[in-house]
């Protein structure tokens, strides 16, 4: 029961209920609603594993299963190089974070149409919660993968380990920015989600996950294009950092995998990518804010 003796504490000023905000004000509003964001992430996970006996273990089983499949397939095909399955998973885990957060974020507003039309809250939390959900998955899968690395005594490179938080942060900024761009697009044209599936597929092959960076760079060089061109893809530096630290080598059995550089070079490419993604984030906040004005009635 509310305390009757205590009158409602009323803020001093009259505030506008809607309208455009600056990017900073928009961010501040999202931060104010951080508990909602956390609850939505938790909700997404609870709902997904409701009524399943193994629950979140399913998330952890997926990379283990992939590991077995890749190991078997590439052994039979005699393709790839030593411990190829581990190499693939180093890139695939962080790639899954990117792709699944974008795919779920794109439909996050359209699938919550009823809510958006009935309650006032910063709508940006919906796509951001999708990124959050994908992040939790990423942690679960990485934990499972870490166990594999331990058990197989895979030689990770500790010299590069400290870069992983930076790589993850870069990935999160990129995902958040793209999520904020894609979700309102899908409100105005539902083609966005179908188009995105194609883009994600193309993007996957443009990122050195199933192949090694050095091989693609060599091929580009042969065509007269600088190998560094590959780094324009913002997913590439992120994936490469994970590969360098977790696979733990830049060449194996005479096969060049990654450029022969120290951790600082990786930090450099990550920093540049982060700055670009922060710029994208600013654009995304502006675009989202612009779209937000007519969101409820367009849905």
């Amino acid at each position, binding site marked *: 029961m509310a305390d009757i003796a205590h009158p409602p*504490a009323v803020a001093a000023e009259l505030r506008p209920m*809607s309208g455009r905000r600056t990017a900073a004000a928009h961010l501040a509003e999202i931060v104010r609603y951080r508990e909602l964001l956390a609850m939505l992430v938790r909700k997404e996970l609870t709902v997904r594993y409701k009524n399943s006996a193994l629950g979140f273990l399913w998330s952890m089983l997926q990379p283990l299963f992939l590991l077995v499949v890749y190991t078997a397939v590439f052994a039979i095909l005699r393709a790839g190089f030593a411990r190829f399955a581990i190499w693939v998973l180093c890139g695939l885990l962080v790639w899954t974070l990117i792709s699944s957060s974008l795919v779920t974020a794109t439909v996050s507003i359209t699938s919550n149409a*009823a809510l958006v039309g009935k*309650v006032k809250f910063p709508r940006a939390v919906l796509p951001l919660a999708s990124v959050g959900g994908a992040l939790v998955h990423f942690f679960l899968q990485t934990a499972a993968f870490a166990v594999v690395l331990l058990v197989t005594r895979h030689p990770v490179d500790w010299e590069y380990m400290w870069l992983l938080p930076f790589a993850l942060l870069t990935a999160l900024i990129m995902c958040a920015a793209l999520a904020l761009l894609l979700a309102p697009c899908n409100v105005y044209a539902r083609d966005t989600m179908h188009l995105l599936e194609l883009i994600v597929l193309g993007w996957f092959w443009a990122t050195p996950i199933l192949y090694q960076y050095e091989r693609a760079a060599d091929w580009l060089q042969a065509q007269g294009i600088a190998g560094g061109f590959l780094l324009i893809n913002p997913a590439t530096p992120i994936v490469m950092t994970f590969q360098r630290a977790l696979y733990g080598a830049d060449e194996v059995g005479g096969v060049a995998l990654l450029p022969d550089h120290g951790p600082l070079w990786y930090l450099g490419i990550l920093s540049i990518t982060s700055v670009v993604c922060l710029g994208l984030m600013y654009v995304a906040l502006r675009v989202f804010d612009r779209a937000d004005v007519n969101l409820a009635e367009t849905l």
Partner: protein
Amino acid sequence: MLAVHVVDVSKSFRIATDPVNSLKERILRLGRSGHVEFHALRNVNIEIDQGQTVGILGHNGSGKSTLLKCMAGILTPTHGRVLVRGRLASLLELGAGFHPDLSGRENVYINAAFYGMGRKGIDRVFDDIVEFSELGQFIDEPVKHYSSGMYVRLGFAVAVNLDPDVLLVDEVLAVGDELFQAKCLSRIKQFQAEGRTIVFVTHDAATVRQVCDRAVVIDHAEVVLDGAPGDAIRTFREHLHGNLAERPVLTSDRSVIAGVRVEYGHGEQRHIAPGEPLRMIVDIHPDQPIAEPVLGIEINDRRGNLVFSVDTDGLGASLAPIEAARAVAVTIRRTWLLDGEFPVSLKLTDRASGEVVDWREAVTSFEVTSAGRAEGTVALDVVVE
């Protein structure tokens, strides 16, 4: 001190003549405007003081819900703006966003978070929410197993425990059983006593009379009246009549009762206050002479309950034989009805032949509007000593 200030708010929607939801169509139609502009609100200005309870009255499609959504910040006005002081909670739909697979408890936390409440804040009022919702141990059951009543109770329980400075309510009190409605109403009264500001959107005049200090009538996207609840309800009903003027009158095959006119006796006014006189002029156009005419009058309320019925025989008044068209005037000298619209049915019989010459169900209706706070159908003269 103002709690809500609606400043010159207009809202128009573009209604696509063909809804465009795909990129292809968007590109194909580039530059061509396949839509019409629809004005849902036009230059609305409302000032609501802190602690006031204001009703927004309007018919379906009048723009009242659009106004509420603009106040809640869900829609952005095309022109003008809405300013609000303090924390606002809008109850546009009870349990909006409840997830069927999650338990009542989980849904309470998520629902409250959508209104900007943190986990700790919810922890503090959680027991009150469960108590108010009367869910008991069902709170840990998935919401999909709830009855619709339980669902609504939980939704309302969350909303009233949000501790808002301004509460916007849209027709939601019309749901649930009577006991729960009474409970909601008493919680609303408690809110009023605590000095909170409440805005009600409704088309139910009784709610406005019961709880509001003031009411705003919206019709055709504009504010037509902003004043005392009694005046607002009257205006609201007059506009309803305006809207329904073209309503076809039920005709029987022999239109002997050719028309009925209600005279309220105050010039333009189309209602009376309780206890005032009312006159009805019945035009009778006989297709053959009626030797011993008997005119029966039946007055019902809007729900169809009989309020009063009598015929000229019962009144001891005998009508002269009707051979040519004539008018019969029926005067109710003191109309002790309280409030509402009262449909009138007429029946004309010929006692000589025992034949029903003509009957008309709800051929007309009249309006009684009370300025007081009493409710019901009849106006009793009550004194408390």
